[in-house]
Every structure is written in C-alpha cells, then in structure tokens.
C-alpha cells in the first residue's frame, strides 16, 4: 500500500517535473498548433449549401427555414447540438445572413451531448475566431495583419525618431521628444478614436471609407482598418523609438570613433556599423512589444472591426462560455509562432558573438 502511494506520488511529481520543461512546452505548443491547423484545414471543405441541405435531416431543414425568425442564440444552440464540425459563420450584423452563410461541414455527426458537443463547439468557435469564410479584416487574420504591419512600419519610423531624439540639434530632437512624450502619454484607444473620428471631422469631405471604391461592400471595414493601422503605427513607433534609442546608445563609443577615423560619415556609421549591431539588442524588447500588440489589437472593436477578443465576447454573449478556451489557445499559438520567428532572427543576428 505504502509503495503504491510512493509510486503514485512519483508519477504525479514527474508530471510536474520542471526538468525537460522545454521539451514539454514544445510538445504542448505542437499539439495546439496541430489542432489549430487541423481545424483550419477542415474548415476549408466547403460543400455547397445544396449538399448540406441534402445531408441535413428533416428537422435541420425545418430549423434552417425558420432561422430568419429565430433569435441568434436559439439557432446557434440548435446547430451546435446537432452537428459535429458544423461551422456557422455570422456576418457582423448578426443573424440575418445566417441561413446562407453557414460555410461548411464535414460529414454529419450527432454532436448533441457530451464530449462531441464540446469538441463541436471548439471547432466551430475556432473557425469563427480565425475569421475563415470572412474577409481578410476579420478575426485572427485581422489581428495578425494589423500587428505585423504595425510592427514593421512602427520600427521603420522609430529608427528616425530615436536618432532624432539622440541628436544634439534641438530643432530635430525637440519634436521627436515631444512626439514620443505625447504618444506614450495618451491612451491608444483615444488616439484610435481621434484618428478615426476626428480627422474626418476636421477635414470636410474626407472619410476613411472614401479611400476605397464606393461599390466595395467592405469599404467601411477597410477604411477603419487603414485608420487602425495608422493609429497603431504612430503609437507603436513611440514605444519602439525608446527601444531603438536604448539599443543604439548601448553601442560602444569606440565604434563611432573607429568609423570616424576611417572617414565614414554619420549616415554611413549609423547604417553600416551602429544600427546592424543594435538590431541584435533590439530584438527581445521588440518581440515583447509585438506580443503586447497582438493583444492590444482587440482595441479595434471601438471602430467597428472584429478581432479574436471581440468575436469571442460576441459568442459568449449568447451563452457559450466555452469559447474562451479556444480564444486563449489561438492567442497562445499566434504568440508561440512569432516568438519562435523572433528567436530565429535573434540567432541569425548574434552569429558574431
């Protein structure tokens, strides 16, 4: 009896063993990634509405005919209970487009109770939060696109801001200081409001939607996305500028002297000597900033865009709190993937150390 207890204790202990935690983390991330990919791949099998209707039972057919008149909650529950891998995709306006916009299922499988029900919900929610079957500006696709654009553009601008702030010439350094002070000192959400709402208010005749073809049904969202990219970039540039400044200032003074003694100009010294060496030191904090951005991207809901957080909140409002599990899993996978990429870049840049 005692031995058994000890053995059991050991088994539990080994499960929580911190040794080989790196491998364990890798396995967990790997499994999540595999599930994520599987759900995405499955979701691309999109039978036509006709095929789905044919496969559906009489009861489902009846439900579908009725669903224009039903509340969204009832419809969702009906679908989740009856199907395994039953993808229902909503337009942002809710239930109206429902009957023609359920985008696919693979096989018909009763998923009305127990584990199958849970799995069915997970897949369904994951699919919706990824933004499959929707425009690019929806769900995870929106989050990833916004974050990458913001980081790339923000970093580019921040190099000039940082060099400007270091500059000894007050005409250059003061505006840069003021910029960084302002954008770090005010909330991103208000900046987003200002750019999205105030700019069209100030410049009469300008509208974000007007940037795109009027016949494009997504013009509103595209316009909002452009505004979001601008606001996030301006904000992120201010934060990155401090990262870049710290990295540039951490480079040994001897490097500037050596470059000057070899006759290089300031521009050549910066582009060939200082910035390339700073990159290596910038990557960890920039990765940090990037990961924060992935989560900050949910702020776009204030200007009518739907990201992962917003979608999960919408789904949970209809009573399914299970949705937060795949929501977190999606964030984890995105973060894990980009952390991995940044790690690779860091390794590439530290080859000389």
């Amino acid at each position, binding site marked *: 009896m005692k031995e058994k207890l000890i053995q059991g204790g050991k088994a539990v202990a080994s499960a929580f063993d911190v040794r080989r935690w790196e491998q364990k983390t890798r396995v967990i991330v790997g499994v999540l990634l595999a599930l994520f990919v599987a759900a995405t791949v499955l979701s691309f099998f999109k039978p036509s509405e006709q095929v789905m209707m044919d496969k559906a039972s009489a009861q489902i057919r009846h439900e579908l005919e009725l669903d224009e008149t039903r509340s969204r909650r009832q419809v969702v529950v009906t679908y989740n209970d009856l199907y395994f891998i039953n993808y229902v995709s909503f337009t942002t306006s809710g239930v109206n487009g429902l009957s023609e916009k359920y985008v696919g299922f693979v096989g018909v499988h009763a998923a009305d109770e127990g584990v199958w029900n849970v799995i069915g919900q997970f897949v369904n929610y994951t699919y919706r939060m990824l933004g499959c079957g929707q425009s690019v500006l929806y769900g995870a696709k929106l989050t990833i696109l916004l974050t990458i654009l913001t980081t790339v553009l923000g970093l580019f601008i921040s190099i000039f801001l940082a060099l400007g702030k270091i500059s000894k010439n007050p005409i250059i350094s003061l505006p840069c200081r003021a910029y960084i002070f302002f954008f770090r000192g005010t909330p991103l959400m208000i900046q987003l409001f200002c750019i999205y709402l105030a700019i069209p208010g100030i410049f009469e005749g300008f509208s974000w939607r007007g940037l795109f073809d009027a016949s494009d049904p997504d013009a509103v969202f595209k316009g909002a996305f452009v505004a979001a990219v601008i606001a996030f970039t301006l904000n992120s540039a201010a934060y990155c500028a401090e990262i870049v400044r710290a990295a540039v200032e951490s480079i*040994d003074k*001897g*490097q500037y*002297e*050596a*470059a*000057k*003694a*070899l*006759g*290089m100009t300031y521009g*050549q010294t910066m582009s*060939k*000597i200082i910035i*390339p*060496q700073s990159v*290596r030191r910038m990557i960890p904090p920039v990765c940090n900033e990037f990961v924060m951005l992935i989560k900050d991207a949910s702020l776009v809901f204030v200007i009518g865009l739907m990201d992962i957080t917003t979608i999960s909140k919408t789904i949970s409002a209809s009573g399914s709190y299970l949705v937060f599990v795949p929501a977190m899993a999606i964030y984890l996978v995105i973060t894990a993937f980009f952390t991995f990429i940044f790690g690779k870049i860091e390794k590439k*840049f530290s*080859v*000389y*150390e």
Partner: protein
Amino acid sequence: MSMIRTEHVSKKFGSLEVLKDINLTVENGEVICIIGPSGAGKSTFLRSLNQLETITGGKIFIEDELFLHREHDRTVESMDKQRHKELMLEMGMVFQHFNLFPHKTVLENLMLAPMTVKGKTKEEIEPLARKLLNDVGLSEKADEYPSKLSGGQKQRVAIARALAMQPKIMLFDEPTSALDPELVGEVLNVMKKLAEEGMTMLCVTHEMGFAREVADRVVFMADGVIMEEAAPEEMFNHPQNPRTQQFLQSIL
C-alpha cells in the same frame, strides 16, 4: 616636407587644460613615439590630430597645408571640405581597445571603409585586404568574426584595417596597453615591420623597448606640455629635463 605640423595647439575640457601650446613636427617617414605619465594629454593630442577631439586653439598642418586653425574655441580658418576629407583619409588610427566591428568578419572589417568611403568595389579591394591580412600573419582568419580572435590578433586586424585605407600617416593610441603581456610582441613586430617599410608613424606607447629600438625621435609629454624631445638614445640615456628623469626612473 613635413607630414604633420602643429603650432600652439591647446585643448581645454571646461576649465581643465589638457594640452598647452603643443608644437610638434613629424617629417615624412619618421617614427615618433610619445611617452609620458597618464593624464599627460598624449592620447588627447593624437585624437585631436584625427578630429576625434576638437582643439580649442592652435594650428594643425597636414602635408604643409593648413588643416585647421582655431582660437578661443572658434574656427578661424579651415580648408575646403573635399580636401579636408582627403587629408583625413591619409591618417589611419589604431585604438587601445581595437574597436573592430564585431558584426563583420575580419575580411569585411578591412573592406568596409574602402567600399563605403572610397566607393571601391569588392573585387577591387579584396586582393589588397587579403595581402594586408597576410602581412599581419592572419590570412587564415579572414572569415572569422573578431570575437573569435585573441587580443593580439584583434589589434593586428585593426592595424590592417587602418592600412586598407592606404594612409600616409599612422596614429597609434597605446596599441598594446590592453593586451596580455605575451601578446604584446606580435603587435609590436607588425608595427616594426611597418616602420621599416617607411610609414610615417606617431605612436603613444608605454613600450620603452619599442621606442628605443624603432623610434627616430621620442617625445616626452607631461601635464599637457612637451617637456623634452630627443633621439631615443639621448632620451633614455641622458634625459635633460628633471621631470623626464623622474619619469624614466620610475618605470625602468
């Protein structure tokens, strides 16, 4: 023709006077060693020739052309920018802490400045770079990063890097002070070879043996002033100035 001539050069950091009225002439092909206690202004003097420090007063001539004339921390006279840049490139500098570019390989370290500053192509400069590496005995390290080299090897690369710009004057700022004692010799040998090839050299050093053997003239500086200037034999065997005698006594 003198390569470098300074007249009444002075340098102040705030109220601290680091250089006071320095007059020195370096002839073509001459090797001059500057010795003296720390804080004497030796490095500052060398660095102000290369514009790493800006002098507060005095005149600097390079190849008998007025390079810079400043009084009371204001530039009185300067030469046209293009020529100024050309003359700057005729001075190569070697630092105490090497200051190699750590993100470039040894060969890239040598080729970077000729390519960016002089606009040469890789094909034009690579043979020279490889020859210089061979001269300093490091041809097999061409593709290593500086972090893989010993201090002595780094300093030899730094010398080769300065030479890749084909300067007429080499300034050495305590090139062996940061090295382990057993690595000093390899760097000094490279410098000796350079001196034998007729390079004009101005060298701040604490290696008295090197100064005695290689220098044409030894300059003793203390408290921002050139106290004594003489041939090495004279300087080491019969120093005239009491300050020089005291310094040499304390180190020999």
